[in-house]
C-alpha cells in the first residue's frame, strides 16, 4: 500500500516538473538557446544539419520546382527550345563540335603520351569516361550569401562531389558538384564568390592552331571572373589579346571531363595593378550562371577509358 502511494506521489511530482518544462515560454527559451549555440557551432560539427536540409528541400521541391520551370519558360534565356534551327542554334552546335574536337585532340595527345610512357615501362592509371545527364535546377539558395544551385538528380545517377561537373548550353562550364544526396545535389557555379581560382587559356583567333595564353581567373562576385593573363612576346599583331575571345578551362585540378569547356569570353582587358606591364582580363560566361534552369551533369564512369562523352556529343 505504501509503495503504491509512493509511486503515485512520484508520478505526480514528475508530471508537475515535466508540465512546467513544457510550458511554451520555457520551451521557446530552450529552443532559442539551442539555436544560438547551433548558430555559433563550427561548420565541421554541423554535418547532421545537411540531412535535415535535404529533407526540407525535398519537401519544398513540389512547389519550388514547378515555379522554377514556369520562370524558366517565361524569362528570356531560360530555355533554348525556341531557338532550335536558328543561326544561334547552329552556332551553338558548331561550338559543341569544336569543344569535342579540342577534347579529342587533347585525348589524342594524352594517348600519345601514354604510349610513350608504356613504352618506357611506366604504368599509367586509365582515364575516366563520362555519361551526361540532363537535370533541372530545383532551386537557388534561399540565402543571399550563397550562390549554390540545387539540382534534382535521378535516383542511382552516381553523382559524386568534385568529380561531377555541370555544364549548360552544351559547352559552358557551370561548376562542380559540391555535395550530393540521393535525389538532390548542390552545384557551385564558377562565378560564385566562394568558388576557387581556376586556370584557363585564352584562344587568340578562330583557327584550330591559334596561339593560347594562360590565365588564372578568380570570381569577382558579380557574375564575372577576372585575373592575370600571361604575356607572350613575339606574337603577330593580328593575334593579340582582344575582347570577345573565348577562354577555355585548362586546369589540372579539375576533372578530365571538364577540360577545354568554355569559361566565358573576354569582356574587358585592363592593366594589372600589381604588375603594370602585364594585363588582367575580365571574363563573362556565355550565359548568366545564376539563372540557369537546366544543366547537364557530366558524371565520370569509374574504370572507363578516355575522356569522351557517352550518348552523343556535348
Amino acid at each position, binding site marked *: 500500500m505504501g509503495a503504491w502511494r509512493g509511486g503515485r506521489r512520484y508520478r505526480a511530482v514528475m508530471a508537475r516538473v515535466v508540465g512546467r518544462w513544457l510550458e*511554451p515560454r520555457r520551451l*521557446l527559451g530552450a529552443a*532559442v538557446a539551442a*539555436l*544560438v*549555440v*547551433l*548558430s*555559433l*557551432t*563550427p*561548420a565541421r560539427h*554541423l*554535418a547532421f*544539419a*545537411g540531412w*535535415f*536540409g535535404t*529533407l*526540407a*528541400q525535398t519537401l*519544398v521541391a*513540389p*512547389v*519550388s*520546382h*514547378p*515555379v*522554377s520551370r514556369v*520562370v524558366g519558360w*517565361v*524569362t528570356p534565356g531560360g530555355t533554348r527550345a525556341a531557338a532550335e534551327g536558328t543561326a544561334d542554334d547552329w552556332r551553338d552546335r558548331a561550338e559543341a563540335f569544336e569543344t569535342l574536337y579540342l577534347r579529342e585532340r587533347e585525348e589524342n595527345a594524352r594517348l600519345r603520351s601514354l604510349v610513350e610512357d608504356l613504352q618506357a615501362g611506366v604504368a599509367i592509371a586509365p582515364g575516366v569516361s563520362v555519361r551526361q545527364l540532363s537535370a533541372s535546377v*530545383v*532551386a*537557388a*539558395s*534561399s*540565402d*543571399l*550569401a*550563397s*550562390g*549554390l544551385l*540545387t539540382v534534382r538528380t535521378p535516383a542511382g545517377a552516381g553523382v559524386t562531389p*568534385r568529380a561531377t561537373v555541370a555544364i549548360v548550353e552544351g559547352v559552358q562550364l557551370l561548376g562542380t558538384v*559540391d*555535395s550530393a544526396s540521393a535525389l538532390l545535389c*548542390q552545384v*557551385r557555379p564558377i*562565378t*560564385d*564568390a*566562394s*568558388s576557387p581560382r581556376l586556370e584557363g587559356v585564352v584562344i587568340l583567333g578562330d583557327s584550330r592552331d591559334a596561339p593560347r595564353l594562360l590565365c588564372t581567373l578568380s570570381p569577382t*562576385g*558579380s*557574375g564575372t571572373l577576372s585575373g592575370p593573363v600571361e604575356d607572350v612576346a613575339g606574337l603577330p599583331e593580328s593575334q593579340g589579346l582582344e575582347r570577345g575571345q573565348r577562354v577555355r578551362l585548362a586546369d589540372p585540378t579539375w576533372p578530365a571531363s571538364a577540360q577545354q569547356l568554355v569559361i566565358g569570353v573576354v569582356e574587358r582587358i585592363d592593366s594589372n595593378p600589381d604588375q603594370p606591364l602585364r594585363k588582367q582580363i575580365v571574363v563573362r560566361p556565355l550565359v*548568366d550562371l*545564376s*539563372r540557369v534552369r537546366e544543366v547537364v551533369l557530366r558524371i565520370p564512369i569509374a574504370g572507363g577509358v578516355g575522356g569522351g562523352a557517352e550518348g552523343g556529343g556535348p
Partner: protein
Amino acid sequence: MSRLAFGLILWVALGLELGLRPALALGPTGIAPSIVIPLVVFVAMHAPGMAAAWAAVAAGLLLDLTFPIGLEGGGEVRVPGPMAIGLLLAAAATTSIRGMLIKHNPLTVAAVSVVAALIAWLTAWALLGVRGLYGDPISFSAGPEFGRRILSSLYTGVVGGIEALVLFPIAGVFGFQSSAGPRRMVPR
C-alpha cells in the same frame, strides 16, 4: 491560430521563395526579396505573441535548412539558427508595435516587412559574421553582404505589399481570433 494552415501557407511561400528568387533577383547583384518574411510579419500582426514567435522560429529554421553556405575549401554546410533567431526578433518587434498599426492595410505589411527583413537579415549577418572571428571556413564576406541585405530588405517591402493583397482575403484560414470581427464599444 491554425498550425496546419500556417504550415501549408509557409510551405507554399518557401517554395515560391526558392523558385522565384533567381527571377526576382536584380541581375547578378544578389539583391532579392523574401516571400517568407512578409508572411511572418502578417502572422505576427494578428496571432497571439507566443504563436507568432513559434511561427517565426519555424519559418526561420526552414530558411536556414534550405540555405547551403559554401565552405572555403569546398563543400557546403547548413547552419541552423541565424535566420530562426533573426525572424524571432523580427516577430517580437512586430508584436510589440502592432497595437499602433493599421493592421488591414497592405502598406502596413509592406512597411513592417522592410523593418522585419532588416532585423532578420542583419541578425543573421551578425551571427554568420561572428563565425569568421574564430576562423570558421564558411565563405561569407560581411562587407558586401551588409549593403546587399539592406537593399534586399527594401525590395522585400515591395513584395510584402503585394503579398498582403493575397494574405488578407485568406486571413480567415489562419483562424486568428482578431479576424472574427471589429471590436464594438459597449455602453455601460
